[in-house]
């Protein structure tokens, strides 16, 4: 069933999520039973050692990957049951994805990259799309670079353009996989500030995978994924979640 009959207070629900991959001919279970809920307007950091399932959790939420078991409910839609085509449409309308390596189309200008999701969804007229895209670029401080190709701007500017693209169809949920992983500290800070604005001013829900302990520490909720399980969730046990615990994982 693609959608739920009863309204949910959560924007994202993960129920006993499992995921296995075949590596070298052998099955490897990456997620061993993840259950999480996210409310609208949350700003969540997902942390943990490399290879322990953080990005996999995000891929389940975005529908980029399918779980081996369990359920993924996003905005009252059972994402794990949707077809590829339906997922593409659904993502355009409900989700904004921000990748570590920006993933802007190299042959389109920043303005066109930002407007492209609106064209896919079929929202607004062409003129309105460009107008809205320009507004979004203004929000991220890139009006002057609107007509440049991605290859002509810095990494930070590309990432900000990618954020603007993620906001193109005004989705309630933004998912970011290591959005500052490829940026210098100053740029990372500016991107983080942007996220904070989106949460506080536009009530966006942002789920962000990060290795940056400092950034994670500043976020209202931190979830640690370790060995395919939720090792810690600051919302459940905020007193347990002390900065010192993150130091060993950062070293790892």
């Amino acid at each position: 069933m693609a959608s739920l009959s009863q309204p949910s207070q959560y924007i994202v629900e993960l129920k006993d999520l499992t995921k296995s991959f075949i590596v070298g001919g052998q099955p490897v279970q990456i997620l061993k039973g993840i259950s999480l809920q996210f409310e609208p307007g949350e700003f969540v950091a997902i942390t943990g050692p490399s290879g322990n399932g953080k990005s996999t959790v995000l891929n389940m939420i975005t529908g980029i990957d399918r779980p081996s078991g369990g359920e993924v409910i996003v905005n009252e839609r059972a994402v794990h049951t949707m077809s590829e085509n339906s997922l593409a449409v659904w993502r355009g309308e409900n989700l904004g994805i921000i990748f570590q390596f920006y993933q802007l189309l190299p042959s389109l200008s920043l303005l066109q990259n930002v407007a492209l999701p609106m064209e896919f969804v079929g929202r607004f007229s062409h003129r309105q799309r460009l107008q809205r895209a320009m507004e979004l670029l203004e929000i991220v401080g890139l009006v002057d670079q609107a007509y440049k190709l991605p290859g002509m701007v810095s990494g930070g500017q590309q990432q900000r353009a990618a954020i603007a693209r993620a906001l193109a169809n005004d989705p309630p949920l933004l998912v970011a996989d290591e959005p500052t992983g490829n940026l210098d500290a100053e740029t990372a800070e500016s991107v983080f500030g942007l996220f904070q604005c989106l949460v506080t001013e536009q009530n966006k829900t942002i789920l962000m995978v990060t290795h940056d302990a400092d950034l994670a520490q500043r976020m209202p909720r931190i979830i640690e994924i370790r060995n395919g399980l939720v090792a810690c969730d600051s919302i459940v046990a905020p007193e347990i979640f002390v900065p010192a615990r993150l130091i060993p994982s950062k070293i790892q």
Partner: protein
Amino acid sequence: MIILLSKVWHDLWSNKSRTMQVVLVIALGSIGIGLVMGGNNLIANTFNSQWKLANPPHIKLGVTPALDDDQLNALKRIEGVDQVQGVLSGSMEWRKLGDTKWQNARLESRPDFRAQKLELIGLITGQWPDRSGLGVIRSADELYGVAEGDTIEVRSNEQVRRFILSGTLKPVGPFPVVFLGQPVFYADRSTFARLTGRDTFNIVEVRGPQWSRSAAEATDLRIQDYFKDISVDSVGLEFPFQARVVSPEVSPGVELLSAIFLILGIIGVIIIILGIFLVYNSISAIITQQISQIGVMKAIGARPWQVLYGYALLVLTYGGLAVMVSIPLGALGARSLQGLFVNLLNLDNPPFRLDPLAVSVQIGVCFVAPLLAAMLPLLAGLRISVREAIATYGLTGSSGLMDRLSARLRKVPFSLILMVGNAFRNPRRVFFIELTLVLSGVIFMMVLGVNDSTSFTFDRKLRSIHNYQVTLSFENLELAQRLENLARSDPGARAAQAWLALPIQGRPAAQKEAAVTDARFTVFGLPTDTISSTTAIPVDATIPALTTSPASGDFYQPDIIEGRWLIAGDSSAAVITRRLANARGWQVGDRITLSASNDRDTTWEIVGITFDPLVQSAAFVPLAALQRASGEAGRANTLFVQTSSVDPAAIQSNSELLKTIYKGRGMDVAPSSVFRYNTITEIVSNTAGGFSLIIQLLAIMAVIIAVVGGVGLSGVLSLNVLERTREIGVLRSIGASNSRVLRLFMGEGVLLGWLSWLVALPLSIPAAYLMSTVGLSAALNQNLIYHFSPYGALAWLFIITLLALIASALPARSATRVSVRESLIYQ
């Protein structure tokens, strides 16, 4: 989808070399088809329209003996005959005033050029022929160096007369001037009679009130009955297959053209198929390159049809660009082909026009073929999940069987392992490029093989069969021994042999009466023992007799396909040519009846079947037996002479000297021999005829195919380099110099090229064999012997190596110019 359009535009413009390659590959196939289809349609239309303008006859016959006016006029009273025209046709010797060398020419006349009825001849410039002036055929100036306004000398009956060429004439319909090998002059009737000694019509043209094949054939039969009553023999004359009855709606030459263009058309289709493979490869590579972009688009909401739309638009844009290139070039090619045939056949050059059918097909090829080719890789790309499509940082790719095998190798240099593994990394792409290169190689080597076979058949083989240097024919029968002895007067003559050549009608022995449908061919009587004549004939005492006459085998050595050649002691044995045997269904052991012009029928047994590229339909019998059968004991009319020198100039001067010798003895030497030319040099150079034309056309297609193969290889290697730009960066960051990287990629290209050559070579041999012995032989109604020569294979090996080196060097070189950092972040 306006923003997607921007992506399409950028994809086209930002990689101009790739765009050019894909467009060129599509365009080449379209040009090939446009050239062949357009050329065929334009030429056929030109043929037919000008053929109709000539008011062609329904029946065209050569008659022996020639008809006088009364006999010709009597034809008009035959049922089914509406128009009759007699033509006087013969040969003459001529030379331009001031020249020393005499040449042969055809001489034609009409009763009244101003009142022609059929197969019209038009006056282009100047005046109609009269007592003092001859007309000359248009294009004689280009081909033979003689034109209106020139003065020529004509030699006939020991007299030399001068004529001014007072007019330029041209048959209104198609006329194969080039294939004649000699110019055509036109004379009024009285001049013709003075020059040839004949005032009668040896060609008869008849047209009925309306065209219908059955009616024309019925009329022909009535004409044959009349000819039988007046003891006249007739043969069909219509080009190219000597038909008696020919439709006035469609020029007979068009059938021949259709066969030629069919062969070219098949090659054109192969070029299109190659183009489809290459477009498939190119689009696959583009999809592979942009797979992460496809993944991102799907991640941000693109539906499959939206992604498909963008790439389909890209492919259609390639097609549109190819249309813009290929239609004018195809039209130009078709026009050039049309011009070539117009010149060959002395037609009027029609105004330029595009052939609508050819243009339509070209447009279809440019749009439909690439779209079909692109569908598979497009759909495959769409099926990949977003997760797989979004590239991670670092080198991607899986290992294949080749990699797993080569991982075990210890003593082979790693760079060689890497080169071989890289070359075969993408099996599907390798398959298609190899298929393209193999097909290109097969066609290219096949064309060269056909060329070698043609040269072999009409030069080496012909010379091995016709082992003489000079041949003369005589208007009257002469004493055979005298002919041979007089040849001794030429110090350059080494040996001579006299034959008797007669036009004959042949039928199965079981058929009691002769019929108009009997086979008509030449029968050659040749010595089968060491004595040239069976009776002692007084010879000229001033010329010492040749002590021995060489066996005929020294002069003529045809290939025996079945049975045997003639031997000493044969009296009623006959050997026939393969074409005659196939046409009539005659076999070794059959008995046939030959009817000479004196109506004496003799029966012969077929003991052998031969092949000779020069002699198409003929029979060979013992000289003495033929002399007896024709009542011409000791007589001959054909002479073959072997000279001491084989230098062409020496042979030519021997030929002239011999003619002078015989004429000095009162013998009437015919202007041309039974093989049309007097020296083996001229025979060889003129006999290939239509083959040289078609080989030129095949060569054009071979060049196009070679370009397609080269462009395809270049495209694939360019894409390989582009895809592995990150890999190049990694190699360079761990110590590989630029030259090492260059060698790696160039080696890959050469490996692919050589592999295709190895596969193509054994395939090209049967292809050349079939094209030579079946395709072209059937199309041109000739016999061609397949002959393998390594030059075609070596030429293609050289070409493909060069193409591979160039194709890989340029993109690899540009890749090494990018910095390591940029290489590693390339996506």
